Structure formats: structure tokens, C-alpha cells
């Protein structure tokens, strides 16, 4: 089973090179990393997949990123509800990220059903639970718990990531399970979320027939 850490930020964004992060990932029990702006490669038995995050909350930017994607895993930062629905229905988008920073109604039951149909994963940045303190962390935990409730009902995929900028931010699979337990995610659910990426890649690369 593939165990993937989604969206890490190696040097020059962070303070650790991709090779060093791959070594650490191996020690932590991961076999795949989705790294921002890094070419696909393999180091120490860890596959590196290229990922991008589209932060501009416009469909123009999303469509441009999808057209140029190639083998890249495209993640889009979540925005208003209507924007999120449009993003989910855009072929080529694999992940919706940053939902904890949006309003509560930005991801509702309708959006959840769309995400399940289109096999677009919701990215949970577990690093937020480590870096944030106080009110911000409480808000993140609340949002993740709400998303988990929707996920259990509509069964859209989750994707987990440490959001690491350094090898000191990377967490092991066991630690991921413990941290996800903070908002009620069971061990099996966490392991399934860590194995989401191969399914997403198959889904986004499948030919689309236009009649």
C-alpha cells in the first residue's frame, strides 16, 4: 500500500533539500512524497511526485494550471462555496486544500457529494495542528471534525500531508495517526487517507470521451 505525504515544501521554499526529506520520509514510513515545484524522481526508494497549489481563487488560474499539468498533481486552495463547486467539477484537479481557512459554509453537503462523484480529495494539512496554537488550532480541529462527519456520510477521499518546510516538520505514520485521532479520525481512516494519491492519479489520467 502506498503511503503518501501530500504537499511538502523542500529547498528553496524550506530549509531541507528534497533528497534529505526523502530520507526522512523513508525513516518515517512513507514511500511517496508530493513535493511543490520539484520534478518527479526517486530517492532512497521514495517516489517524488510533482505538485502545485493554485492559490489564486479564480477559475482562470485553475484552468491554466490544469492545461499545463502533465504529470503534476494539481491542488487548489479553497475559497467560497461556488468557487469550490466549480473547482471540484474541473477535470484535472486532484485536491482541494486549505479548507480550514475558509468559512464554515464553504464546503457543505452538496460540495461533499460532488467531491465524492468526481473523486477530488480534500487535503488536510496536519502541520496546522502542530504549528498553530490556541484559538487557531481549535478552529482547525473543529473544521476537520466537521469534514470528517461529511466524509463518513458521502465518502469523498481525504489526503493527508505534514505541510513540512523542514525535516523537523515531517511526522511518521504513527504520529499522523495520533494527530488525526485528535479530531476523531480512526486509525484505518487515517491509513486510507494516506493511500489516496494513486487512485487520484488514475482518475485524473483516464481518457475523457466527448460525444
Amino acid at each position: 500500500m502506498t503511503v503518501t505525504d501530500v504537499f511538502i515544501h523542500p529547498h528553496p521554499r524550506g530549509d531541507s533539500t528534497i533528497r534529505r526529506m526523502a530520507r526522512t520520509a523513508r525513516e518515517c514510513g512513507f514511500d511517496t512524497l508530493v513535493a511543490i515545484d520539484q520534478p518527479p524522481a526517486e530517492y532512497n526508494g521514495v517516489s517524488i511526485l510533482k505538485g502545485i497549489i493554485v492559490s489564486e481563487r479564480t477559475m482562470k488560474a485553475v484552468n491554466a494550471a490544469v492545461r499545463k499539468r502533465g504529470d503534476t498533481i494539481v491542488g487548489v486552495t479553497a475559497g467560497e462555496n461556488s468557487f469550490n463547486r466549480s473547482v471540484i467539477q474541473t477535470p484535472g484537479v486532484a485536491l482541494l486544500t486549505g479548507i480550514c481557512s475558509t468559512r464554515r459554509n464553504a464546503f457543505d453537503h452538496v460540495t461533499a457529494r460532488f467531491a465524492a462523484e468526481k473523486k477530488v480529495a480534500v487535503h488536510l494539512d496536519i502541520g496546522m495542528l502542530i504549528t498553530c496554537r490556541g484559538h487557531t488550532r481549535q478552529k482547525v480541529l473543529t473544521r476537520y471534525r466537521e469534514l470528517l462527519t461529511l466524509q463518513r456520510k458521502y465518502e469523498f477521499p481525504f489526503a493527508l500531508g505534514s505541510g513540512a518546510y523542514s525535516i523537523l516538520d515531517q511526522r511518521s505514520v504513527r504520529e499522523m495517526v495520533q494527530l488525526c485521532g485528535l479530531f476523531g479520525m480512526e486509525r484505518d481512516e487515517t491509513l486510507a487517507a494516506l493511500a489516496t494519491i494513486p487512485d487520484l492519479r488514475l482518475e485524473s489520467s483516464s481518457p475523457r470521451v466527448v460525444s
Partner: protein
Amino acid sequence: MKPLPPTLRENRRYVLARIRPSTIVADERDWHIAISEAVSSLYGDITAAEIHAGTIRQEGAYLIIRCKRGWEDKLSTALTTVRAVHQTPVHLQAISTSGTIKALKKKIRPVITGDEVTCVINGSDHSGIYYADGNIDLIRRDMKGQEVVFLTKDDMESFHATTTKSDGI
């Protein structure tokens, strides 16, 4: 004062945690403050008092932390949220839990030691530590302070490391 009889004493568990990077300089008191802050921040003061975490000893790159029996999972989770000691970034990884310190000591592995190296990257001097497994921790010092860059031996080419003043790289 007469000590409590064994049957009335609190049952304890001990958690072994690995410190990364292993070169960090901090004493047991510093660790205790960092862990207490992480526990009370995550679970609140009431649960923190229940957990009753305390740093027992530091052995090389490992730390043994005490807690009340039944709360070791919560302590391990809180340990993952420790980010810094003395504002220096750090990662504490819980390795194992046991009822005795002796059992945990058996799980302590020898630390991979490194040699101090100095190299020139893009015309500026960098000092750092080169480990036997090929990892390099480079320390970049400038007016703003110091910053550590974690890389491997293979990365040195892409960093245009032109000269080395020590053996190894």
C-alpha cells in the same frame, strides 16, 4: 516524612523520545518546560495535571519522559506538537513506552556522530556537520542570525560547493 507505601503510589509509565537534530543543546529543565507547554496547550491544564508529565533524563539524542499510567498515548501525541526549545526548531519522536526505565534504556541506539566541516558555497563560507550516513547539516550565519540547512552529500553539487576545507565532502 515517611514515604508512601508502594500500593498507594501513583503507577507510572515512561516514554522514550528521540530528539532531532541530535546536536541540539538543552538540559532536562528546558525539555520539561517545552513538553509541559505543549501538553497544556493541546489538552488544557486539567488534563496536563492528570498526565503529570516530567522529564526524567536525557541520554544522548534520547529523552525519557514520565507520565501517569493510562495517559501515555496523550503524552505521545503532545510530544509530536513540540516544535522548539529555546526558540531552536526541534522534533521529538516518541519511540516506545514502558513501565520501567531499564527496559527503555535497552532501546536506545548509539547516535550517529558527525565530523565538523567547512565548505564554500557560492563564495561564502558555511560550517556544518557531516554525518557518516551522508547527511549534512549546514549552518548559515548572517546578520539576522543563524539558519540550518539540511541536505545530503549528493546535494552538494547542486549547491555549487566549490571548495571544502575538511575531508569528507
